[in-house]
């Protein structure tokens, strides 16, 4: 499986932590005895490249949308991304909404209830992370991978097993990152196939 990250501009800590070495990295995960190779892709997040988003996420199974809990705007951008992704990819895509910077709980501007209920209303899962303290990120990826595998299997069964569609194998996941500095609301896209 592969994972792509649509990152934002300027770089947020979430992306920085992920891509401190290179803009392309692989992660090996073990899920339910199944070895999963996660290829995580960094993408350009400047506003002028926003239109290129579909090229990165068109073959994805899932998306991680990251917002900053201290910034209301970034949460609005998450909503826009959800709309776009649902429109482009339908319900086949696993959505994760991530409230980042939980180390700054005091400055919280997006309420937990609001975020969680919104996530539920669009069929997404909500997570809390702190990139600074490296909290919740590993769990996030593990959980997302599990869900992606499940969705992929359900899809396959629905399609009638035998004729393995090459397209299905080519799908991946997105991460969309809407942290505050991200004026563009850059996306993080993780595709795992």
């Amino acid at each position, binding site marked *: 499986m592969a994972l792509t990250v649509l990152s934002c501009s300027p*770089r947020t800590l979430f992306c920085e932590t992920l891509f401190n070495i290179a803009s392309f990295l692989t992660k090996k995960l073990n899920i339910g005895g199944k070895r999963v190779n996660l290829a995580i892709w960094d993408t*350009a997040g400047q506003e002028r490249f926003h239109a290129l988003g579909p090229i990165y996420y068109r073959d994805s199974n899932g998306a991680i949308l990251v917002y900053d809990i201290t910034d209301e705007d970034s949460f609005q951008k998450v909503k826009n991304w959800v709309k776009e992704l649902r429109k482009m990819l339908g319900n086949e895509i696993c959505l994760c909404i991530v409230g980042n910077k939980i180390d700054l709980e005091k400055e919280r501007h997006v309420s937990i209830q609001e975020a969680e209920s919104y996530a539920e209303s669009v069929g997404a899962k909500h997570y809390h992370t702190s990139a600074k303290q490296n909290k919740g990120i590993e769990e996030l990826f593990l959980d997302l991978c599990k869900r992606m595998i499940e969705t992929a299997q359900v899809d396959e069964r629905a399609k009638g097993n035998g004729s393995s569609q090459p397209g299905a194998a080519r799908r991946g996941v997105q991460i969309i990152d809407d942290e505050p500095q991200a004026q563009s609301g850059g996306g993080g896209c993780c595709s795992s*196939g």
Partner: protein
Amino acid sequence: MTLVSRMIGNSFSHVLVCPLISRKKMSLKSERRGIHVDQSELLCKKGCGYYGNPAWQGFCSKCWREEYHKARQKQIQEDWELAERLQREEEEAFASSQSSQGAQSLTFSKFEEKKTNEKTRKVTTVKKFFSASSRVGSKKEIQEAKAPSPSINRQTSIETDRVSKEFIEFLKTFHKTGQEIYKQTKMFLEAMHYKRELSIEEQSECTQDFYQNVAEKMQTRGKVPSEKVEKIMDQIEKYIMTRLYKYVFCPETTDDEKKDLAIQKRIRALHWVTPQMLCVPVNEEIPEVSDMVVKAITDIIEMDSKRVPRDKLACITRCSKHIFNAIKITKNEPASADDFLPTLIYIVLKGNPPRLQSNIQYITRFCNPSRLMTGEDGYYFTNLCCAVAFIEKLDAQSLNLSQEDFDRYMSGQTSPRKQESESWSPDACLGVKQMYKNLDLLSQLNERQERIMNEAKKLEKDLIDWTDGIAKEVQDIVEKYPLEIKPAAQPLAAIDSENVENDKLPPPLQPQVYAG
């Protein structure tokens, strides 16, 4: 190579050959003929009554020309047949006995294809009705075009041969699984041969299915570990794509070529885009960085010369690595995707790689999907797709320019570089830059020298004018007030004469005595 030598050997078996073989062989022949000539008459062998010549093998010039022409035709024919036979044998060696018939048409297929395509272009509808007759026509043309074709076939077959050999050698290390794979690959290639008429998307779909099936079979039935599966898949891809390349790269049934030309034109029209407009974080003044940029451009251009999708991807990856290095040297920190994509766009704009769209389409259609979607290569490839999409849609806004400026640059009325003080392109290497600087300096000096010359000439003219002017003035004055020299006696006399106006003066004072 073996094919070449065998062909020469064959030509020797005819008596009347020579222009195609080397001089050395000629001399050998004439020696043998030397004895021959002694025994025979000196007249033309054909008995036309003229004298023959050993150099013309005993014929007179006229008969020789006729004979020679005939022989050459015959030889070409035979060479052609031989090449065809060898090709057939070669095909048979790889394919099962069933495919030998198909292989025969394989030799012609190139021409048939060309011809058919030509027909399609000219008379699409007519061709449908007369497809049978057009075939016949194409065969005729093949015979006319015989001579150059064996070399083309030979050339491609050399590379195909090499790849095939490597593939077989490679599979030998896998014993039974290898045999199974070879069989499947052969069957697939045969099937593809009959699917050539299908649309490129269908052919692509077949190839993708094949990749997936083979990989699955290896994992489930052969119990091959996944790392090995990857290696085998790479070899399979190399083998089948080397063979399919000429049929499926930029096929004429698609508009790939049109798109190639469109993007090429577009990139040319955008020649004025500077790194600053794209916010490219690369400083080409640093020699190391400009070196990396040049290497990146070379790699992306090289992509077109590769046949296997994986090799093409490797070129893109190498290019991307150079870009990352260039950014790293400039910024002194690892590059992020925010830096990478603009730089890649800049490199594509500068390099204008040939057949860009065809290559992208070809890779998308025929590359092993697992590599394309998960690997590092896939990441860089996706970025290249983005770069191309960006270039296609690029407008004033994406370069932070005003619409008027953008339009003016696009129409070529002005160039943003002209406004800069530097008239040379910023991408030139240091030496060239120095040269341009020196040229600039020289032209400045030249200008100044000219100015000095002009000034000097002006000064000279001024001086001449001045002297002339003075002379004229003096002349004028002299004319106006001519110098009249009066006789000297008169004034002298006047001085000496009695005072004329004496009487107007009061009388001179007379001394008076006062007695007191």
